[in-house]
């Protein structure tokens, strides 16, 4: 059993921010928790799932997750929903109104901003939502604070009957640091749903009177922020510059300027403006350090407090010590002597698809068919935009591929007339928000060829379950959606729904060629498990028989990382020109025996090794 799950109060553990939130949720008496996977928030629910006292689930998307949490709260249960920053956008319709109606059981939304874009399509500052949705925001700076503030958030939520945002960033979620537990689980039994239409049925007549109450709540929270211990001043000996900061930026400030006074805002919205004013009076210059947008800055300036902020510091990315030091030294008129870094220069190593990844087949096909506009989506298959496939033309947000492709079809320009429009989407993204796009396309008689790449997992975030996998968050059997019937139910003609094994390259190329010619929507469903999940079955590796290899290089175009160039040779062709031959080699340690590459090899030079002949060699350059 997991040691952290059963740990007593006063024990110390090395925990990520996400693990700390999970433990805090358990101690706080949370009864329901829901999320959709998304970096860097995924591990929050994965860890909550370890606590049997909490009902937890992978919901199909973030809006659903937040609504599940809202329902539980109305029944009187403490509830938590976790999501990455872009998930908060999806969920916003739900919490923007629930914030008005309020909550019963403590309702906490943990949102993780991917500051620095380690694995996201954009960078967002979710603290905007607190302002937009009239919800208080707590901003932990490390794991210990993530643990403590999550517990505080539930008390705050119940006391003020409001959803509370715990705003994390990648550098809190994924940093492991010491956490000392201060308690164990305290049950908060649910009283059950109390019917009260004026409170819970948000018609205009019922919602209107709530507006004044919500603004009064804002006022009370603002007063609380002024006295909250989460907003603490640290005295410093060098008073030339004093910092107001929140979240992990606090750690960076302390690291870079250990002697400077700092006002740390843990309860950052509503901001304690009078506390900030008093702090400002004790220092020569006030500098606001916040990731990422100028939110506190705008409010502090509006309060008439002199300060500096984004004129010195970047509006995006992490405000690491290496960013802060030169900016602040320049402000002080000092020369910043950065340590002169040693020199290196190495090739890029971009992320790639895995050996025997079931996406390789479809991308091999797409990269070999001309005249396509390929509208992509969010997942590992976004990597299809890269080398060697170059077979993905857009990526915007979860589920956008089908609807954007439909729009690209309806809005064709002169150069698109001969083009076929293809949408590429994975199983989980399709179920998250893609289905609506397909329904819309059918309803409005669009013409798009959809590739639904079913790898039976949420691959990019680490192979989580979804309604298409047949298992739930706890690995228990769950009803598995039938993608063929689903597509049919949404109105795709049965003749235009094709299923194919993505490893059967000649078949998939043929199928895509056939379907793009159709004057109606088609759905091609490829089904094979993600090669990083337990569902994947490994076979004996393949090898290139050197005597048979003609150097055509077709297998290299597959983009499988187990296949590399053994040698190149320039030969003269009959017409007198020269052409390069590329001879391939398969790394037996990386090859999983999926046989996909054999489908690219006309001379049948790629063969499975026999039981005895597998020679494990060290891979080399």
């Amino acid at each position: 059993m997991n040691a952290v799950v059963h740990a007593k109060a006063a024990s110390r553990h090395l925990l990520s921010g996400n693990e700390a939130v999970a433990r805090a949720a358990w101690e706080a008496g949370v009864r329901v928790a829901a999320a959709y996977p998304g970096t860097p928030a995924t591990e929050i629910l994965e860890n909550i799932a370890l606590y049997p006292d909490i009902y937890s689930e992978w919901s199909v998307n973030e809006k659903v997750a937040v609504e599940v949490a809202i329902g539980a709260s109305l029944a009187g249960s403490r509830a938590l929903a976790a999501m990455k920053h872009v998930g908060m956008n999806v969920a916003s319709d739900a919490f923007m109104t629930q914030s008005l109606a309020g909550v019963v059981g403590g309702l906490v939304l943990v949102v993780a901003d991917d500051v620095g874009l380690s694995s996201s399509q954009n960078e967002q500052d979710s603290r905007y939502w607190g302002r937009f949705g009239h919800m208080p925001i707590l901003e932990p700076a490390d794991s210990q604070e993530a643990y403590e503030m999550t517990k505080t958030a539930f008390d705050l939520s119940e006391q003020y009957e409001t959803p509370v945002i715990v705003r994390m960033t990648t550098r809190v979620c994924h940093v492991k640091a010491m956490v000392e537990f201060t308690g164990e689980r305290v049950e908060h039994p649910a009283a059950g749903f109390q019917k009260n239409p004026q409170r819970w049925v948000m018609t205009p007549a019922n919602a209107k009177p709530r507006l004044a109450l919500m603004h009064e709540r804002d006022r009370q929270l603002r007063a609380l922020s002024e006295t909250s211990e989460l907003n603490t001043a640290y005295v410093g000996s060098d008073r030339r510059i004093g910092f107001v900061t929140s979240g992990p930026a606090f750690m960076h400030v302390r690291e870079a300027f250990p002697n400077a006074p700092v006002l740390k805002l843990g309860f950052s919205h509503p901001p304690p403006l009078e506390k900030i004013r008093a702090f400002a009076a004790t220092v020569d210059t006030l500098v606001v350090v916040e990731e990422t947008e100028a939110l506190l800055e705008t409010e502090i300036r509006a309060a008439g407090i002199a300060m500096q902020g984004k004129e010195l510091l970047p509006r995006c990315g992490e405000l690491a010590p290496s960013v802060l030091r030169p900016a602040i030294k320049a402000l002080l008129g000092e020369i910043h002597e950065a340590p002169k870094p040693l020199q290196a220069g190495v090739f890029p190593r971009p992320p790639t698809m895995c050996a025997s990844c079931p996406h390789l087949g479809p991308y091999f096909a797409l990269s070999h068919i001309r005249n396509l506009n390929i509208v992509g989506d969010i997942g590992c298959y976004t990597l299809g935009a890269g080398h060697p496939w170059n077979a993905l033309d857009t990526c915007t947000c979860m589920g956008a591929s089908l609807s954007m492709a439909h729009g690209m079809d309806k809005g064709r320009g002169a150069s698109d007339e001969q083009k076929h429009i293809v949408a590429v989407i994975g199983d989980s993204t399709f179920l998250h928000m893609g289905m609506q796009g397909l329904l819309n396309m059918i309803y409005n008689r669009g013409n798009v060829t959809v590739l639904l790449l079913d790898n039976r997992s949420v691959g990019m975030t680490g192979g989580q379950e979804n309604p298409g996998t047949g298992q739930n968050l706890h690995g228990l059997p769950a009803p598995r959606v039938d993608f063929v019937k689903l597509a049919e139910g949404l109105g795709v003609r049965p003749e235009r729904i094709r299923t194919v094994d993505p490893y059967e390259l000649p078949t998939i190329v043929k199928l895509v060629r056939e379907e793009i010619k159709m004057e109606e929507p088609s759905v091609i469903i490829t089904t094979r498990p993600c090669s990083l999940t337990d569902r994947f079955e490994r076979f004996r590796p393949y090898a290139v028989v050197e005597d048979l290899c003609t150097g055509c290089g077709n297998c290299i175009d597959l983009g499988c990382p187990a296949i590399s160039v053994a040698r190149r040779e320039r030969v003269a062709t009959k017409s007198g020109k020269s052409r390069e031959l590329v001879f391939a080699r398969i790394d037996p340690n990386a090859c999983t025996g999926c046989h996909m590459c054999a489908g690219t090899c006309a001379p049948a030079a790629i063969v499975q090794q026999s039981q005895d002949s597998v020679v494990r060699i060290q891979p080399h350059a």
Partner: protein
Amino acid sequence: MRDGIINILVVGIGGQGVMTAAEMLARTALNQGYDVKKTEVAGMAQRGGVVSSHVRFGPRIYSPQIDAGEADLLIGFEAAEALRWLPWLRPTGVAMVNTLRIAPPVVSAGLYDYPADPIGQLAASGVEVHAFDAGAIAEQLGNPKLVNSIMLGAISDHLPFPADVLKTAIIEGFRAYKPKLAEVNAQAFDAGRQAGHADR
């Protein structure tokens, strides 16, 4: 080491066990009474991309990140990756490098070159470099997954606590979860410790 803080950068490629090694170091330091922070770029890293894990410990650690030029120890699970992160090392720092070379598809395709002599380049920068073929040692011991314990053994004499503390922590970890592997990992640790004293 500066202000009693030690900064260790563990680097390699997704799937090599970089994060596991860093976790082991961080846990051991925590048990030795240090304040510890460990951070890395995860997410897309498992798709064959660059992985770097920062481990910092000392009396009190604020920022989890090691700045360029601030690492005391660089543990490279792959030769070119060690070279990539060389700018993070202090000029007085130590690089412990597995000589394994893994070329990504962009190199294989001829778009970029793999450095001819990454270990030589590291040494030419003036830092203390120890390099050896951890894969060969693992193979001799009969399990390629031992590279992790070999690399930890190799750096164990560069830590502010005795090498045996780290060794014991590793063995206890295996005893708890995979007892059959405890003994061979102890051997791997010792072999790595010996190899780590090689000059280059």
